[in-house]
């Protein structure tokens, strides 16, 4: 299906049908807009590689939001109080909303929603590896809010200034909503940490398991990141993976202290000279392995996602049939 949005108009690829002689003028206008820190909008001419790179990144981001609903919704029915349950439901609903903002942004680039979901379901597009880890205890809900959402915020705040307008605007909404996610997680962990020795141990165990995967969320080291340099040149990305990872570590250390919990890294220490914390080596073998599909929950997440989609088919069909009937009735009486 051809995606037609008001922003793209009826022109699927958003590129004006350029004469050969105009092509370099369009390219120059694009380069100038990026250089001047202006935003690229859907109907502007853009290099095909820029478009493809954005589709890949925004789709992966959208998929991560909706797959990310699964590990947390695992605990909705077992939340320890009505207050915690209402909070968790609101958070999971927000993740669905974030997915929808992002799918809409991707559609302005000329891809359809169905196409994106097909690619997720068939494994041709990825989602963040972090969601292939299981939520074993209630404390994991807290660790996800504090660390996983915290890492996501660190990644997403600079994306609010991304060169592609619709992506940047979606990120502004997402970031506003995300800060509640992080704070509820932190508060949850604090309650556990200050609770009984068993509750404290449960909080510490969750942090021990989520810390390293959270650091991996920033992606491979700069010298091994295949898309980074070009994305930075196009101002899709504003900071390198390692830069953002360092920023996150520096933010987390004092937060962990305030929680009364430790971070599971014997090499973690303040480096006066650098003005940053040094931290231990990340196990990238694990990262690549999970990315390839061998994490604890890869299979479960995709199976559940496909099942939800298939089992919702009758609802979508019924709504479509109803709309068609209303439309036909309207024409009959007109």
């Amino acid at each position, binding site marked *: *299906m051809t*995606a*037609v*949005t*008001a*922003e793209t*108009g*009826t022109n699927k690829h958003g590129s*004006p049908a350029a004469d050969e002689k105009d092509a370099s003028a369009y390219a120059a206008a694009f380069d100038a807009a990026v250089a001047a820190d202006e935003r690229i*909008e859907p*109907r*502007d*001419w853009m290099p095909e590689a820029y478009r493809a790179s954005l589709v890949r990144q925004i789709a992966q981001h959208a998929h991560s939001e909706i797959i990310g609903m699964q590990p947390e919704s695992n605990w909705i029915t077992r939340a320890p109080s009505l207050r915690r349950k209402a909070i968790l439901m*609101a958070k999971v*609903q*927000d993740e669905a*909303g974030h997915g*929808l*903002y992002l799918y*809409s942004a991707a*559609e302005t680039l000329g891809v359809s*929603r*169905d196409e994106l979901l097909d690619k997720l379901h068939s494994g041709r597009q990825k989602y963040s590896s972090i969601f292939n880890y299981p939520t074993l205890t209630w404390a994991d809900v807290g660790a996800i809010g504090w660390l996983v959402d915290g890492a996501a915020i660190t990644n997403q705040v600079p994306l609010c200034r991304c060169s592609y307008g619709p992506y940047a*605007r*979606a990120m502004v*909404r997402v970031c506003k*909503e995300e800060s509640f996610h992080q704070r509820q997680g932190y508060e949850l962990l604090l309650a556990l940490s200050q609770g009984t020795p068993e509750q404290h141990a449960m909080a510490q165990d969750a942090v021990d398991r989520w810390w390293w995967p959270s650091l991996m969320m920033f992606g491979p080291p700069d010298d091994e990141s295949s898309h980074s340099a070009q994305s930075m040149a196009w101002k899709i990305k504003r900071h390198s993976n390692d830069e953002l990872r360092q920023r996150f570590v520096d933010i987390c250390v004092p937060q962990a202290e305030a929680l009364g919990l430790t971070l599971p890294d014997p090499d973690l220490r303040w480096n006066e000279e650098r003005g940053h914390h040094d931290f231990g080596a990340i196990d990238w073998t694990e990262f690549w392995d999970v990315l390839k599909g061998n994490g604890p929950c890869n299979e479960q997440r995709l199976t559940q996602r496909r099942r939800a989609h298939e089992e919702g*088919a009758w609802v*979508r*069909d019924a*709504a*479509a049939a*109803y*709309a*068609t009937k*209303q*439309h036909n009735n309207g024409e009959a009486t007109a």
Partner: protein
Amino acid sequence: MTAHDWPLWEVFVRSRRGLSHTHAGSLHAPDAQMALRNARDLYTRRSEGVSIWVVPSTAVTASSPDEKDSFFEPAGDKPYRHPTFYEIPEGVKHL
């Protein structure tokens, strides 16, 4: 229409009385009523609006970025439409 081609709707939200509706984003829905409900759930979960419009995306006609210069050019050479164009002697008030 099948479930695979639910049309796209553009969503406009009035954040409070006295302000105009502003474009918030887009969504898919089978009909206008469902589009309104989805828009409420998607764009006003934190009381961001007191009124919502949904418009089929296909009903929007947009100017082309391609003709940006010539289309908007007529306004470019008319600085006399701005109050700052005019020189008024110092000390003259209420102008």
